[in-house]
């Protein structure tokens, strides 16, 4: 499903963010990526959806070898991927409904199907009643839920999230986690970078710990393992 072998990433400014990464994530897994700030978690995540390219090494996601992917085909590749961003990345001029619908319009779905499916996922994230609002009229947690709704609307095989609970209070964080868990229970692979110790230690799943660009721990049913 997701495979990295001998991956190194050095940014143009000379910072080496990742160093010799080898990892294999199977279909249907739920994976936490943890580690101190600046360890390379976001870089690891960005490589998966081809926001960044590795300096050396190969990455395969959903059977696509990313180094062979041309720029013009990147959007097509991303359609099989749901990405949840820490800063939500919602289109500011579109309503909640339109933001989620956009991901379906892109794949030229029928408007009737779009309407039905978008309302379905908005219901799942508990925002059906706010479908006509603009992102600026929502709280951070609500915007994050819109971002999640958009990431799953096309039923992707993989959902990738970078600190989806980063800006949220514990209660809202758990709401988000329940949604991600529900998605995972339907067979979707979920990879999320997080600093949330409470979540990692209570909802036990595979944990990959990164420090200074290297994988230092990889455990099934792992612990967060860092003091706050």
């Amino acid at each position: 499903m997701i495979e990295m072998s001998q991956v190194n990433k050095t940014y143009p400014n000379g910072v080496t963010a990742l160093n010799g990464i080898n990892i294999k994530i199977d279909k249907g897994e739920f994976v936490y990526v943890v580690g101190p700030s600046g360890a390379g978690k976001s870089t690891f995540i960005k490589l998966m959806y081809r926001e960044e390219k590795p300096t050396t090494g190969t990455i395969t996601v959903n059977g696509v070898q990313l180094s062979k992917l041309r720029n013009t085909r990147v959007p097509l590749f991303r359609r099989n991927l749901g990405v949840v961003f820490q800063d939500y990345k919602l289109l500011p001029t579109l309503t909640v409904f339109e933001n989620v619908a956009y991901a379906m319009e892109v794949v030229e779905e029928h408007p009737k199907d779009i309407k039905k499916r978008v309302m379905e996922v908005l219901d799942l994230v508990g925002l059906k009643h706010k479908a006509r609002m603009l992102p600026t009229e929502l709280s951070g947690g609500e915007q994050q839920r819109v971002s999640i709704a958009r990431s799953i609307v096309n039923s992707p095989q993989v959902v990738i999230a970078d600190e989806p609970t980063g800006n949220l209070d514990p209660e809202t964080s758990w709401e988000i986690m329940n949604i991600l868990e529900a998605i995972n229970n339907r067979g979707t692979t979920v990879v999320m970078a997080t600093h949330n110790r409470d979540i990692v230690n209570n909802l036990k799943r595979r944990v990959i710990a990164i420090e200074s660009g290297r994988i230092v721990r990889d455990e099934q049913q792992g612990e967060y393992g860092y003091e706050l």
Partner: protein
Amino acid sequence: MSFRTIKRHFRESGKSLTRNGWMTFASISAVTVTLLLVGVFFVIMMNLNHIADNIQKDVEIRVHLDPSADAANKELIGQKINQITAVDSAKFSPKEKELTNLIKDMGSDGKTFKLFEQDNPLSDVYVVKTKKPTDVIKTAKTIEKYQYVQSVKYGQGYVEKMFNVVEVARNIGIVLIIALLFTAMFLISNTIKITIVARRREIEIMRLVGATNSFIRWPFFLEGAWLGILGAIVPIAVIAGVYSYIYDTVGKNIQIKFVELLQVNPFIIQISIILVLLGALIGVWGSVMSVRKFLKV
């Protein structure tokens, strides 16, 4: 691209106009200013061309032949004139016809000239037209030197002055065109710069959720076209109004032979079509430029 998606792009481009509020207004204003200038310039240029055309049609060289020339001489002169490359046509007009024309032109006073019918003092004439009005003077000077040519008349002085006026006006037109292009480019690139900042993030997000370049581009294209077409409304209204007014009042008071403005009816429609197309073109160009930067290929 499916028909459904085309419909979607149209709908989206329309919505985008209202969503972007003052940005839409700023873009339309830029197009409006540009088209107003372009429109005024077009009106001037096309009228100038019209006047030049009139001159071309009306300016002719009248070659008066010497009374001593016999039929063969006259024939020969006709052949020689026709051989000049700049000459379009040369029509022979015998003195009898010249007199009839004169009597007709003079109206009631013409009767007095009837006396001359017995002993016609006029000469036979070749009426020569050149292909280009600017060749009149040179051609006239050439013909003047032929044997049995008594004199050559082409409105000396008057024609030269007219050509000067047209020449100067054309030069002013060229200067105007350049100034205009710079103004247009400045205004549009400025508006684009503002739009770019607002659009950069949007386009990034669109790509992140799987939109291909063409999917992103189309609504922007259409939006640009709308902006241009909307921007053409005010210039068309202003130019139509002002031009009709000038045509009705000022145009009628100027009675110089060649200075005749183009008729309001087909002209304003032509100008309107040109301005709408130009507006759409400017708008689409602006959108293409502002979006292109953010679509990595």
